[in-house]
């Protein structure tokens, strides 16, 4: 860099000209490239999703003809009507909502309560409990032992298998504890002098003050619960009434991917007959379910954007 600024020799004027000329052209060229790149990124990110929306609003028998891009050719609401007319999807939607709400509420409450106790420096069991929780971030007993635990606890084929195994996350606990560490200790001290018990201090003082970090973590927990399908697949697949939206979507997906296998096609076709509308195809049903499954999250996350950094950063720095 140094050699460039000092341009010895007989033609300093030319060198200066060259440099200033470069810096005049460069930003425009760079900005053009950068803008084009970002537009491409936006298109590549959004197009598949927008196309799915279009397919979900287009008549299924028309979609099969192909050539459908960003605008529906035969606009219809039949796909959505079929989705909600089919009892399986509607029930699965309700189960998904229930598990998401319950998981998020329990997770936030319990994780914050634990984080509060472990943020208290004078607490005798602070270090051993922290250690025991933190270690769980680094190992996992594995699928089979986990499955047997659920079996021994009689959680298989119950709703609780969605909620109980993931009530506390060690990682989130560390993030919240770090955040509590930034709250002045004098608040706790003065509440104690006023005779408040530990739970009251936690619930009335600490919990409300943690709102920014809890908002982010609630979003992460809710997204995780809403998006999971594997637990339904593994633990409750023999009870249809406990199926979740993502698991139903997964079944639709695998049936369309292995279109040759009989039970799968029957599954998709059965749904179209339920709706008694020939316009609806498995593909258009899948598109509609995809949109139903993603819209709730997409409505929420843009408003939380400013908090994402808090959640990620604090966790990665770990003090």
């Amino acid at each position: 860099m140094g050699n460039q600024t000092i341009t010895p020799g007989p033609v300093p004027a030319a060198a200066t000209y060259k440099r200033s000329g470069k810096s005049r052209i460069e930003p425009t060229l760079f900005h053009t490239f950068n803008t084009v790149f970002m537009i491409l990124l936006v298109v590549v990110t959004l197009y598949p999703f927008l196309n799915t929306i279009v397919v979900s609003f287009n008549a299924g028998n028309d979609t099969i003809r192909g050539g459908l891009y960003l605008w529906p050719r035969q606009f219809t609401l039949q796909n959505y009507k079929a989705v909600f007319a089919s009892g399986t999807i509607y029930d699965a939607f309700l189960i998904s909502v229930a598990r998401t709400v319950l998981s998020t509420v329990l997770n936030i409450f319990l994780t914050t309560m634990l984080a509060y106790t472990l943020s208290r420096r004078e607490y005798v069991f602070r270090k051993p409990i922290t250690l025991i929780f933190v270690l769980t971030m680094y190992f996992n007993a594995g699928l089979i032992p986990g499955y047997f635990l659920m079996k021994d606890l009689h959680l298989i084929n119950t709703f609780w298998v969605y909620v109980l195994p993931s009530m506390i996350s060690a990682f989130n606990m560390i993030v919240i504890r770090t955040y509590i560490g930034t709250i002045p200790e004098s608040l706790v001290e003065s509440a104690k002098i006023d005779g408040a018990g530990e739970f009251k201090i936690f619930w009335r003082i600490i919990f409300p003050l943690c709102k920014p970090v809890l908002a982010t973590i609630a979003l992460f927990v809710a997204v995780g619960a809403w998006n999971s399908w594997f637990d339904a697949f593994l633990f409750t697949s023999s009870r249809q009434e406990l199926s979740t939206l993502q698991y139903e979507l997964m079944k639709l997906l695998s049936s369309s991917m292995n279109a040759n296998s009989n039970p799968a096609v029957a599954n998709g076709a059965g749904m179209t007959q339920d709706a008694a509308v020939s316009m609806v195809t498995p593909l258009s049903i899948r598109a509609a379910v995809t949109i139903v499954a993603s819209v709730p999250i997409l409505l929420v996350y843009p408003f939380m954007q400013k908090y994402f950094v808090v959640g990620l950063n604090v966790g990665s720095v770990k003090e």
Partner: protein
Amino acid sequence: MMEETLTKKPVVRKPKKGKRQPMTWSLIKNQRQLIWMSVPLLAYIILFSYVPIWGWTMAFQDYKPALDFADQKWVGFKHFKFLFLDDNFLRVLRNTLAMSVINLVLGFVTAIVLALLLNEIKKVFWKRTVQTISYLPHFLSWVIVTGIVATTLASDGIVNDVLMKLHLIKEPILWLSEGHYFWGVVGASHVWKEVGWNTIIYLAAMSSIDPALYEAAEIDGASRYKKMFHVTLPGIKPTIVILLIMSIGHILEAGFEVQYLLGNGLVVDWAETIDIFVLKYGIAQGNYSLATAGGIFKTVVSVTMLLIANWIAKRLGEERLL
């Protein structure tokens, strides 16, 4: 704080034992409210995260669910030996390592490049908009993403459409039925889903770079590229190093969902990972002992890698992870 907790393991329990017992008892009495708020949760985590480790004994038995623990036949390392002589498992191991390395390299490079480019956008609104949109796929489930990938890569999908219109190919490519493409498809799917999200941490690191460094570079006549390479990149180097080291522990975490959902009979030789192997042998075929052995192998490797990573981090003078 966490470093202390974890590195001084032996010290942790000392206050409970030894001479200061009486004081501890009075402390426990004083702190009973805190204890009531945390010890039940401790019991919970021990039940759900530690008790299942007992199940590892299955890997050293010919486990039969009908028998009591005392009646199980112990077979030592038989299942582990079988795993490492089994072509199936070695192939699964190859797939796992390959996809994990591809995901790692692609994930890092794309996120860093995108973060550098986003950082150069000066119009705040435009930058925000691109960021918000780039986060979108992160919030979609793998079920949805693999559905989108399958539609996009179908023989009449948009990718083949565009390639045909550009006359780059004459016939549609069957992306999902060709084993050779599978690792690439998985890598690309990961990038599509996570690249925007992964920039967050780099952008945060970039925003904490001292502006004086840019001003100094400016005075020295550094071009935009020079500033990118000599100020921004070194500024986020510690973040990159930490994240790289952390990901070493995930070297056998090639993922499960995407391979399971995108895989099919035609690409099975390239698609199966250790997790799918465990699922297939354990849950589907009831060979619990072999599946548990596979799971133990994965955990042991992960923990070992993590300890090595921690050691490397210490040697490099970076913040320790544990």
